[in-house]
C-alpha cells in the first residue's frame, strides 16, 4: 500500500516536471541587461521581467522572484519590486570577475523555477600605454614595445598605429599572448620621420598612448661586424691588427665601435678606449700587448651619434703576438750529489722553464757556462732543464741563458762554493701558512745582502722519499707563495735558502699544510701499566701520512661498561698518560682521538681491567702477619726458655740425686750467712747439714784498695778458721795445678789480694749437670790470702745455685744487688752476653773456664772474670805465662786506677759496692 503511494507521488512529480519544462522552453521572462560587462567595484542593477502567461500559469507575480548568484540566493534586502511583473536586484561594489546571475520564481509548494540567467563580467578599462619604444633590427622589420598598464580582466586589443606626415601605414595588431609588443608588417624607411602610437581598447573603453615621432635610423640596431680577423707584426711583438667587414648599414650611416680583448686563458675582457673607436672603420691596431701571447677579440658597432642600439658582439677571433727575446733570466739552482770521491763532486745544475710571459716565445735551448775561479771552463748547450757536471772541490761560477728565435735572455749567475765552504746567515722567522688556497711562505731577511732566495719543498711521508720541488725569488722578496701543484692534507717541508754573492747561506726549514683535515686514523692506545686505581696509557705518535694536519691535542675517552664516558685532553707532545681514580677490579674501555685544526679521529677502543689488589698489597699484608706470628712465637719460645726453670720446677721438680751427694767439708763454725736465700737454705738443707760453704764467684774482681779492709777482715776471718780447714786437708783450689801456681806466684801475689788460702771445701757444681766428676779438695799451703782465687769458684757455685730462683738473669741480678745503678755495669752485661753466647749453658761455660784456667800454668786464679780470661787467653797465645801475668797485673792496676772515678770494670764494682763481704 505504501509502495503504491510512493509510486503515485513519483509519477505525479514526473508529469508536473515535464509539464513545467515544456512551458519553460519558452522562457517565463528575461533579465535586462542581457550580457553586462561592468567596471569592477562599481554598482550593478539587473531587472527580471516576467511574462503574463507565466505569471498566470504559476499564479505568481514579481514578489515571487528570487535572485541567485552562483547558486546562492541573494538576500531580499537587495531586491526591489518595480511592478507586478518586474523586480530588480542591485549589487554594490561588485568585485567578482565572473558572476552567474539567475532570476527564479517561487511556485506553489515552495518549488523554485528558474526563469532566466545571465553572466556578469567585470574588469577595468585599459590604462594608457606607457614607455612606447621601437627598435629596428637592421634588415628586418620594426618592432615596438610598450607598457600596457594594469590587468583589465577583459579582452583588450592593442593596436600600434604609425604614419608619415603624408601617408598612413597599416595598423599592427597585437597577438593576445604578447599585448605589450608588435612587429610591424613593413620595413621602415630610414631618414623619414614616422609617428607611432598605441591604442588600447576593451568593452569598458579605449585609450591612446602618447605619440612618438622618430626617424627609424635612430632606432636601428645594426648587424654585428663580420669576418673579424687578427694578424700580427714581425716588427712589433706588442701589436695585433684587427680587420672586419662592417654591416651594410654602414653605407648609409656612420658607425662607432667597441672592441674587447683578453688573453686566451683570462676570463675577463679588457676594452679598447671607446674614443679610439668612435668613427667608422674596418680595422684597428691593438697595442701594448704581451709578446707571444694569444689574444681573443670581439667587436660590436652602433650608430656613430649614439642613437639607436649596439649591435650584438661579433664572433670571437684570436691571434698571437710575435715573439720577443726572453724578458727574464731563468731560475737557476744546483744540487750536489751526496757521493763524493777522488776530489770530484757530481753537481746537478737545475733550472726552471720560463713562464710564457717571460719566455716571450718558444725557448729553443739553454746555454750554460762554467767558470772555475776566473778562468773559462766549458760551454754547454742544453735542451733539458738540468745538467750534471763533475766539478773539483774548487769554487765555480755557472751562468745560464735561455734562447728563443728572437734572442737570448739575460744570464742567471750561480756560485757553487768550494767543498769546504761553510754556509752562514740563514733567514729568520720563517713561517708558512695557507691563504686563499695557496701556501704562503714568509721570512725575515738576513742582515747580509741577499741575491736571491731558493725555496724548496716536498711532501713529508713515511712511504715515499722527499722529492723536492723548488722556486726562486728575488733578493728583495720576503713573502711569496709556493708555485706548484700542492695537495691538501699533506705535510710540506719547506726550506728557504738565501743565496749570497759568494754562495748559498744556511737553509731554514718549516712545515706547513695547504689545508688540514682530520687525521685519517686515530691513535692506538694501550696500557703500559695497570694498577688498582690507575692505569698508565701509552700510544705512538701518528705517522705523518695519516696525520693530515698538525696534531694539536689528544682526547682520551674512558668509561666502564655502565658508566659515563670521561674525556681527558692531553697535549700533543705526550705519548703517555696516567688515568687515576679508577675503580679496582673493573673493566675499562678507553679510546683516543687525535685532533688537528680541522677535527679529530677516533682510534680503536682498548679494554683493560683494573686488578683487585695493588701490586705488593698482598705481600704487605702477608709479610707483617707472618712476621708478627714469628715474633710472637719467638717471644713465647724465649719466654719459655727463660722460664724453663720455673716451668721445670712445676712440671718436673728437682729431685736430688743421692748418688751425687757428698760432704765437701764440715765446718764447726758456721759463719753467718744472711745473704743466702731460701734456695741456698734449701740446698744446704737438702744436702748438707751444718756445712759451711764458701762460694767463690769466678767473675769476681780483684779487690780495690779501699776494699782491702773488708778483705782483711775476711782474711782475718779466714785465718781464724784456718785451723779448721786445714784439718780436713786438701786444697780447695779448682785446679790441680793450683798449688804450684800459688806457690810460684806467691811473692807477686802478695801485693794482690787475689790469692787466698782455701779454707774450706769448694763445691763446684750442682747436682744436675754432674760435671765436676772430680771432687777437689785443696788446701792452700800458703798463708797468703788467696781470697779472690778461692772465692771465685765459690761464687760461681753460688750463682749457679742462685740462678734457679732469680729469674732469667740470676748472675746479673746478683751483681745488680751489688750495684746501685744498673747502668754502671756495662761489663756485666757484656759478661752476661758472653754467658748467653755460651749456648745458655753456664755450667758448660764454667767448666770450660775452669779448664782454661787450669791450663794456665802460671795462673794465679786471681782473675776469673771474663775479661781477664780473655786477656789471659790472648796472653797464652802470645807468649809465656809470666809475660801474661805481668800484663794482666798491669791491666788490673790500670783498671784499678781508672775505676777510682769510673766504675767500668766489674771487679772493682763488685768489691767496691759491697761484694759479698758486707753482705
Amino acid at each position, binding site marked *: 500500500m505504501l509502495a503504491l503511494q510512493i509510486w503515485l507521488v513519483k509519477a505525479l512529480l514526473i508529469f508536473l516536471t515535464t509539464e513545467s519544462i515544456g512551458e519553460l522552453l519558452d522562457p517565463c521572462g528575461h533579465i535586462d541587461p542581457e550580457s553586462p560587462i561592468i567596471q569592477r567595484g562599481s554598482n550593478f542593477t539587473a531587472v527580471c521581467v516576467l511574462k503574463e502567461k507565466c505569471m498566470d500559469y504559476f499564479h505568481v507575480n514579481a514578489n515571487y522572484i528570487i535572485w541567485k548568484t552562483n547558486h546562492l540566493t541573494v538576500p531580499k534586502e537587495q531586491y526591489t519590486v518595480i511592478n507586478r511583473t518586474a523586480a530588480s536586484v542591485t549589487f554594490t561594489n561588485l568585485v567578482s570577475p565572473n558572476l552567474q546571475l539567475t532570476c527564479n520564481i517561487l511556485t506553489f509548494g515552495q518549488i523554485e523555477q528558474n526563469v532566466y540567467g545571465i553572466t556578469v563580467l567585470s574588469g577595468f578599462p585599459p590604462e594608457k600605454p606607457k614607455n612606447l619604444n621601437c627598435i629596428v633590427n637592421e634588415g628586418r622589420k620594426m618592432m615596438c614595445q610598450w607598457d600596457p598598464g594594469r590587468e583589465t580582466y577583459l579582452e583588450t586589443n592593442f593596436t600600434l598605429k604609425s604614419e608619415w606626415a603624408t*601617408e598612413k601605414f597599416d595598423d599592427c595588431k597585437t597577438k593576445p599572448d604578447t599585448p605589450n609588443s608588435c612587429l610591424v608588417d613593413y620595413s621602415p624607411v630610414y*631618414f*623619414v620621420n614616422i609617428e607611432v602610437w598605441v591604442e588600447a581598447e576593451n568593452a569598458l573603453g579605449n585609450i591612446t598612448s602618447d605619440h612618438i615621432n622618430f626617424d627609424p*635610423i635612430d632606432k636601428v640596431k645594426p648587424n654585428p661586424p663580420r669576418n673579424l680577423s687578427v694578424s700580427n707584426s714581425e716588427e712589433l711583438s706588442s701589436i695585433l691588427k684587427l680587420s672586419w667587414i662592417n654591416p*651594410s648599414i654602414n653605407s*648609409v650611416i656612420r658607425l662607432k665601435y667597441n672592441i674587447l680583448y683578453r688573453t686566451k686563458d683570462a676570463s675577463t675582457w679588457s676594452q679598447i678606449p671607446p674614443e679610439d673607436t668612435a668613427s667608422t672603420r674596418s680595422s684597428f691596431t691593438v697595442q701594448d700587448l704581451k709578446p707571444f701571447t694569444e689574444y681573443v677579440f670581439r667587436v660590436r658597432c652602433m650608430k656613430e651619434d649614439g642613437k639607436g642600439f649596439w649591435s650584438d658582439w661579433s664572433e670571437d677571433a684570436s691571434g698571437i703576438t710575435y715573439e720577443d727575446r726572453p724578458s727574464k733570466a731563468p731560475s737557476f739552482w744546483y744540487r750536489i750529489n751526496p757521493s763524493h770521491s777522488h776530489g770530484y763532486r757530481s753537481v746537478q745544475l737545475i733550472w726552471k722553464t720560463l713562464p710564457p710571459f717571460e719566455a716571450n716565445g718558444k725557448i729553443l735551448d739553454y746555454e750554460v757556462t762554467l767558470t772555475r775561479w776566473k778562468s773559462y771552463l766549458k760551454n754547454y748547450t742544453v735542451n733539458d732543464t738540468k745538467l750534471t757536471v763533475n766539478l773539483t772541490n774548487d769554487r765555480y761560477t755557472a751562468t745560464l741563458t735561455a734562447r728563443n728565435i728572437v734572442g737570448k735572455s739575460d744570464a742567471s749567475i750561480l756560485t757553487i762554493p768550494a767543498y769546504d765552504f761553510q754556509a752562514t746567515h740563514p733567514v729568520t722567522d720563517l713561517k708558512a701558512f695557507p691563504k686563499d688556497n695557496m701556501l704562503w711562505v714568509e721570512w725575515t731577511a738576513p742582515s747580509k745582502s741577499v741575491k736571491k732566495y731558493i725555496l724548496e719543498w716536498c711532501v713529508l711521508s713515511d712511504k715515499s722519499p722527499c722529492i723536492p720541488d723548488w722556486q726562486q725569488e728575488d733578493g728583495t722578496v720576503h713573502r711569496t707563495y709556493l708555485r706548484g701543484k700542492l695537495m691538501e692534507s699533506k705535510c710540506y717541508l719547506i726550506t728557504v735558502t738565501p743565496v749570497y754573492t759568494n754562495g748559498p747561506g744556511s737553509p731554514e726549514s718549516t712545515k706547513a699544510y695547504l689545508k688540514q683535515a682530520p687525521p685519517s686514523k686515530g691513535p692506538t692506545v694501550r696500557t703500559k701499566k695497570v694498577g688498582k686505581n690507575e692505569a698508565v696509557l701509552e700510544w705512538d705518535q701518528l705517522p705523518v701520512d695519516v696525520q693530515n694536519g698538525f696534531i694539536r691535542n689528544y682526547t682520551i675517552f674512558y668509561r666502564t661498561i655502565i658508566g659515563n664516558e670521561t674525556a681527558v685532553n692531553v697535549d700533543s707532545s705526550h705519548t703517555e698518560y696516567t688515568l687515576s681514580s679508577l675503580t679496582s677490579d673493573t673493566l675499562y674501555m678507553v679510546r683516543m682521538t687525535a685532533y688537528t685544526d680541522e677535527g679529530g679521529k677516533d682510534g680503536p677502543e682498548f679494554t683493560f681491567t683494573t686488578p683487585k689488589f695493588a701490586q705488593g698489597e698482598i705481600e704487605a699484608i702477608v709479610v707483617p702477619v707472618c712476621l708478627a706470628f714469628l715474633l710472637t712465637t719467638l717471644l713465647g719460645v724465649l719466654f719459655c726458655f727463660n722460664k724453663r726453670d720455673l716451668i721445670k720446677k712445676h712440671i718436673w721438680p728437682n729431685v736430688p740425686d743421692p748418688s751425687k751427694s757428698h760432704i765437701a767439708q764440715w765446718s764447726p763454725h758456721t759463719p753467718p750467712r744472711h745473704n743466702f736465700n731460701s734456695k741456698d737454705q734449701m740446698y744446704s738443707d737438702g744436702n748438707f747439714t751444718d756445712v759451711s760453704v764458701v762460694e767463690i764467684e769466678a767473675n769476681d774482681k780483684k779487690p780495690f784498695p779501699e776494699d782491702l779492709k773488708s778483705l782483711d777482715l775476711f782474711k782475718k776471718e779466714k785465718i781464724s778458721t784456718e785451723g779448721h780447714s786445714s784439718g780436713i786437708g786438701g786444697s780447695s783450689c779448682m785446679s790441680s795445678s793450683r798449688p804450684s801456681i800459688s806457690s810460684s806466684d806467691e811473692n807477686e801475689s802478695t801485693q794482690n789480694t787475689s790469692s787466698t788460702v782455701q779454707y774450706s771445701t769448694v763445691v763446684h757444681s750442682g747436682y744436675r749437670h754432674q760435671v765436676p766428676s772430680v771432687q777437689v779438695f785443696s788446701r792452700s799451703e800458703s798463708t797468703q790470702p788467696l781470697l779472690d782465687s778461692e772465692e771465685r769458684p765459690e761464687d760461681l757455685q753460688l750463682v749457679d745455685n742462685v740462678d734457679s730462683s732469680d729469674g732469667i738473669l740470676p748472675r746479673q741480678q746478683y751483681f745488680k744487688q751489688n750495684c746501685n745503678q744498673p747502668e754502671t755495669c756495662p761489663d756485666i752485661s757484656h759478661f752476661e752476653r758472653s754467658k748467653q753466647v755460651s749456648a745458655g749453658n753456664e755450667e758448660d761455660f764454667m767448666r770450660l773456664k775452669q779448664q782454661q784456667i787450669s791450663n794456665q800454668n802460671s795462673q794465679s786464679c786471681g782473675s776469673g772474670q771474663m775479661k781477664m780470661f780473655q786477656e789471659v787467653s790472648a796472653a797464652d797465645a802470645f807468649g809465656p805465662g809470666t809475660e801474661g801475668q805481668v800484663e794482666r797485673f798491669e791491666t788490673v792496676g790500670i783498671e784499678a786506677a781508672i775505676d777510682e772515678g769510673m766504675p767500668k770494670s766489674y771487679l772493682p764494682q763488685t768489691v767496691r759496692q759491697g761484694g759479698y763481704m758486707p753482705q
Partner: protein
Amino acid sequence: MLACLCTVLWHLPAVPALNRTGDPGPGPSIQKTYDLTRYLEHQLRSLAGTYRLPQFPPSAALLLATEPCLGVLLNYLGPPFNEPDFNPPRLGAETLPRATVNLEVWRSLNDKLRLTQNYEAYSHLLCYLRGLNRQAATAELRRSLAHFCTSLQGLLGSIAGVMAALGYPLPQPLPGTEPTWAPGPAHSDFLQKMDDFWLLKELQTWLWRSAKDFNRLKKKMQPPAAAVTLHLEAHGF
C-alpha cells in the same frame, strides 16, 4: 653694459634662430633628405645587387657615364640588359624625366626650381616604378620594389617638407598626365624592357643629382646660423 647684457640674455629665448629645439628650420630636414637620397641610392644598388656604380661622383660633374645596374632587377630583365657593357640608346623612354643637365644650367637653378624639379621627377618615377612593381614576377622582387617605392614616397614627402619649410608651394600635379604602365600594343617585350632599363638608370641618376642638390642646399642653409651666432657675440660685447 651689464644691464645691456642682461637684457640680451633675458630676451635670448625669444630669438628664433637660437631656439632651435622649437623650430629647427629646414636645415635638419635638408640633411635628412640628403641622407635619404643616399639611402635610396644604396637601396637601389642593393636591389640591383651590384657595386659596378661608383659610390659618389668624385667631382661636381653630374653628367656621368653610368653603367647599367645589374643584379636582381636587371637579371629579371634578362640579357642583354644585365650585361655590363650594355648601353642601349634612349628610345621609348621619352616620358621619363631626364636627370642629366648641363652643369652651368644646374648651377644656375634657384632653390625653388631645384626642389620643384626634384619633386616632379620623383613623382613621375614613382608612378612608373609602381607600374613596374605590378608586373614583377617574383614575390621577393615585388617586396623589394614595394619597399623601394615606399622609400621613394618618403623622399617625396621629405622634399615636400623642405619646400614647405622654405615656403615654396608644391607643384600641382597636371591632370591627365598621370603616367600609366599599361602594356600597349605598340610596345614589344623588348621595348618594354628597354623602358624598364631606362627607368632604373634615370632613377639612379636622379638620386645622384638629388644628393648633390640637397648637399648644395645644406651648405647654403648653414651660413645663416653661423651669422646669427656671430651677430649675437657682437651684440653681447
